[in-house]
């Protein structure tokens, strides 16, 4: 594995299998009374969050703590420029404090790349602008593999604001890498015209796609996009692309419904649909901790697999 995880480009299909296999062994830790292994004892993980994202930060924090790493949360809103201290100076400070890994969430695409110039430890991209969110994609892959047992030939649709979605990019790249068949669905204003070069299909219509799916992945659609004239009204968006109660019947039995959260109930997904048993949002969250444990463990070169099973 490479030292950093900045995008799905940084991992091979073999790496992904290894990450998911390792996550599987960590998954069990979360079911114990004492949810802790000593794999990263004495190592320091910094959560550098320039964007509010309680769920991702907590997930990484729990992952690091369950590996017995020391965790520092550095949370701030806005860009480093607005804040006064540059990203570089913050990075140099973290470097001076001996951070072994920096988990960064930032509103600017490419901020994790910049960070790698100034810190020696591993950089994990926890979502950068509208670029990528690779750990989200990997936890989604974990969830899909656990449920369907395979990727090859799995038919997945990623539905919604693909243009602005870092999740959609990472998940598309990862699914294609693993041999799945991906269709991006949404209004033409929100699908990059060159998306087919990613190895995916594109559809501007949802009803014809749903009956063929193994995985129906809904993206959050921000109301802001209406103000920016990407679609006329939120109501029209929901009618055309929302996963409504009526539409959900078009999905084959056993198809998975997924969403990276936070959901806009009533916009991209009906409330009742979100609460169906085949909707896996909570499972995604649970798996997220195990996958992030796996990533921290593998990137920081945890000292040996036997320690995974060792007592805390």
């Amino acid at each position, binding site marked *: 594995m490479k030292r950093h995880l900045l995008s799905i480009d940084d991992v091979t299909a073999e790496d992904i299998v290894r990450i998911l296999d390792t996550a599987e062994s960590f998954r069990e830790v979360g079911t114990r009374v004492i949810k802790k292994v000593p794999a990263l004892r004495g190592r320091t993980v910094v959560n550098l969050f320039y964007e509010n994202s309680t769920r991702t930060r907590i997930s990484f924090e729990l992952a690091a703590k369950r590996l017995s790493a020391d965790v520092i949360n550095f949370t701030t809103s806005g860009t480093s420029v607005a804040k006064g201290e540059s990203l570089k100076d913050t990075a140099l400070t973290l470097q001076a404090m001996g951070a072994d890994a920096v988990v960064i969430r930032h509103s600017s695409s490419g901020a994790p*790349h910049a960070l790698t110039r100034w810190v020696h430890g591993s950089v994990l991209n926890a979502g950068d602008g509208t670029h990528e969110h690779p750990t989200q994609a990997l936890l989604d892959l974990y969830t899909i593999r656990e449920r369907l047992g395979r990727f090859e030939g799995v038919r997945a649709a990623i539905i919604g604001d693909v*243009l602005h979605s870092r999740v959609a990019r990472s998940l598309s790249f990862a699914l294609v890498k693993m041999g799945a068949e991906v269709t991006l669905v949404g209004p033409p204003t929100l699908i990059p015209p*060159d998306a087919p070069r990613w190895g995916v299909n594109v559809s501007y219509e949802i009803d014809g796609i749903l009956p063929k799916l193994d995985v129906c992945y809904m993206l959050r659609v921000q109301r802001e996009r209406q103000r920016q004239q990407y679609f006329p009204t939120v109501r029209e968006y929901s009618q055309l692309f929302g996963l409504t109660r009526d539409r959900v019947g078009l999905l084959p039995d056993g198809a998975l419904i997924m969403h990276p959260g936070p959901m806009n109930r009533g916009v991209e997904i009906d409330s009742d649909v979100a609460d169906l048993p085949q909707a896996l949002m909570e499972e995604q969250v649970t798996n997220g901790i195990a996958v992030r444990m796996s990533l921290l463990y593998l990137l920081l070169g945890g000292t040996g697999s036997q320690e995974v099973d060792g007592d805390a």
Partner: protein
Amino acid sequence: MPEAMHQRVVITGARVVDPASGTDGVAGVEIADGRIAAVGDGVSAAAGATVLDGDGLVLVPGLVDLHAHLREPGREDKETVETGSRAAAMGGFTAVAAMANTDPVADTAAVIEEVRALGAKTGLCDVFPVGAITRDLAGEELAAIGEMALAGVRIFSDDGNTVPSARVLRNALTYGKAFDIVIAEHCEEPSLVEGAQMHEGYRSYTLGLIGGPAEAEEIVVFRDLALARLTGARLHLQHLSAAGSVELVRQAKAAGLRVTAEVTPHHLVFTDEQLAGYDTNFKVRPPLRTSEDRDVLRAALADGTIDVVATDHAPHAVEEKEAEFDQSPPGTIGFETALGAVFTHLVEPGILPLARAVEALSTTPARILGAPAHGGPIEAGRPANLVLFDPAAEWVVEPPFASKSRNSMFLGQTLRGRVVHTILRGELVVADGKAQR
């Protein structure tokens, strides 16, 4: 008069390439009292003269840059007229046009005079201040075009901004006809490049950066050419980046419009693929586009559809360029690499004949700038604004630069072709690759 004006310099054995006189051959050049005294086989080292051995070197008229940002007044932390002039001289330029987006903006004769005086005081190259088209570059009210024209300003530009209103630009073009001036436009339709960080296409979608399409440029080029036709005025299109723009310019020229166009060395060399690592030195406006665009720009420069190469030298502070990509200002420095870049990437591979390169870097921009002392011809009696460069010299682009900034898109590149001597009105301002002041 500086003492240097009386310096006698004799250049022997250099290959003289001078499009203005159609010269390409080895000749000696003698300089006295700031002027070329003699050119030809008979020139030999006279007593008391500084002799420059031109063997293996190329002697061309001093380069002329129609597009540079010297940042003074206002952002002296990035560049001053002095450091910019030094960088220009190191790059072989003897004349540069300094864009108006200073603080305060050069929209009155007072700012123009200040910049010009700073240039004269430095004396390392001739600085031609550009006047703003609209007050404060705001695109709404005309700047003091007449006042600045009477103060000797030739080129007017709101560079950095397109004049958003067709009516305002029409009036500027029409009003300018009372003077011998050139309206130069930065072409990007504002509503299509709002927030844009790079060229819109596969790369921008994959990198998650907001893109600006090539059509943003083409729309403005089309509009401006239509206004040039409507007004009959003189129009110059700055730093063209898109293949579609080139075709529009070709048609306009065929139709007899008074239009000229420029391209930067970086648009002739790089493409949007360079953005993959989010290196902010590759962030420029207009953005680097595809290899197809780049190849069309190269061909258009070779066939004369694009008239000149201009650097768009745009220095920025280190801390600004080290910021997040979308927070970082666009621009690359360009004076010190322009000749090497054009020579390495266009002349050596046979895309551009050397004489055409010299024409695009000196002869034609001098004519557009209205700077008769520059751009050749290299003939007896002419002001001695000359540059000697070594076409075989290989060098790696790296700091220190003569520019105050180091945001170069060419950092780390090996270039062939380097300036050895720059002569401004007979004075060796750069000798053996070193600025003399």
